[in-house]
């Protein structure tokens, strides 16, 4: 139970995709509502562009990779490429 909430190991904690997009939506909403000073508008725009770039990167970076864990002789586990059997209907 103490391990709950731990994410993928060995990766820097980064913002979830949906959190990024939620932020981007808020920024766009603020800009569309108007009422910001020109400086604030430009600042929001830059922030929005940064969020959009980051979200795009998140969608593009993943590389198709299906792997399977196999136990080695010494009991440790390694991931090897896995080709699902698609001959069956």
């Amino acid at each position, binding site marked *: 139970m103490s391990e709950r909430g731990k*994410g993928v190991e060995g990766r820097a904690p980064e913002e979830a995709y949906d959190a990024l*997009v939620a932020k981007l939506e808020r920024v766009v909403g603020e*800009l569309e509502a108007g009422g*910001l000073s020109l400086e604030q508008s430009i600042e929001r725009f830059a922030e*929005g562009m940064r969020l959009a770039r980051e979200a795009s990167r998140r969608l593009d970076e993943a590389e198709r990779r*299906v792997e399977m*864990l196999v136990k080695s002789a010494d009991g440790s*586990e390694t991931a090897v490429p*896995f080709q699902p059997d698609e001959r069956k209907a």
Partner: protein
Amino acid sequence: MDLFDRVRPRALTVGELTRALKAAIEPRFKDVWVAGELANLRRQASGHLYFTLKDAEASLGAVIWASQARHIAFEPTDGIEVVARGFVEIYPPHGKYQLIVQELEPRGHGAQALLLRQIKERLQKDGLLDPARKRPIPFLPRRVGVATSPTGAALRDFLRVLLGRFPSLPVLLAPCRVQGSGAAAEVTAAIRSLARAGVDVVVVTRGGGSQEDLWQFNDERLARVIAACPVPVVSAVGHEVDVTVADLVADARAATPTHAAQLVAPVRDELIAGLASLRGRLGRSAAEAVAARRRDLRALRAELADPVRLLSQQRHRLDDLLHRSEGGTRERLRSARAGLSALQSRLGRRDPISHVRALARRAAEAHRRLDAWRAETFRREALRLERLERRLEPANVAKLLSRGFALVLAGGRVVGESGQVRPGEGIRVALGRGWLDARVTARDTGSDPLPGRGDEPPGGPDPDGHVDPLPGGRY
């Protein structure tokens, strides 16, 4: 000695026999499993549970002490088949033996359902079935873990839908058997391996099957490992109607492997389209913010930065006003002009310049007359003075001197005060006729001009100072 007495063995007491039986039997049946049907179930107020285990052949009295009775996971009733675990005890006072039951489990038909209920109740008691502890499935996992058979249709269906929705999503498979004895332990190990390897979500799946096939997913240890998994677990075991304990404990339950893929992976193309739309709105709204400022600025500049136009506008407005009031204005101008010339003529009659000139002339005349008067007055007074001087001065001095007054001179100057000369100095005394040269023998610088209050004049006959106040006679 009776022969019979000799050959007959010594009689045992009841207690001795019973003790012997107890010693012979109880160690042999210290831990036995006995199967049978429940009968004559009696629950005492103390909590002890008395019943009979029987089969076609025999009956066995049994008791579960209250302390153990509390731990029975099902409700024992007459007629059900059970397996009891315990030890045989002989109770000497009643001469009976019975089974002291430590554990009691249902057996045969319906036993699984009872066992399942027991497991669920334990999980419930530990809070593992609480809906509040279910975690949300990540919107876009960085890697998806799957615990299933590498050769099953479930994996094929799952991957087809998952990679159809998000083609580049990484997947890590932990192979395990999903049916048959020992499958639960393999699935448990697979979940643990995936958590260790690092995934954002774990999917446990297998296709549909019989109740017996799915039974492994009711394993209590598997359920506890699912609950303790550090990342959310999606359970997709069997078909929609089959609900296993694993389904109950998991953070999300999918009816089928295909459904699990939909829960775990968003559609990438939809995400890209949504992102493009947001990016477009972002650019448009930012551009609009700038354009709006530019419009404002242009409007302001149009108003402010063109004074010529602004003046021209004002002039037009003025012209308009004049035009509108022209008739009246002309009339007023004419009468105003007439009034003005009248005033001018009146002013001409009272020309301030000629008025000033007249005043100046009068002033000059007054001045001249004043000068004349002053010159005349001076002249007259001068003549009068001259006449007076001529009449007065010589006559007066001579007259005074002739009347006995003297004029004292020292060094050519008239002496008016005794302080002007010192004793021993020579003085000339002018008289009415002739003069005397004398020498000062003493002086009194007092203020009183008459003698008698100071030093006695030389050879003075009046030592006490009393003299006739009237001058003359003595000099």
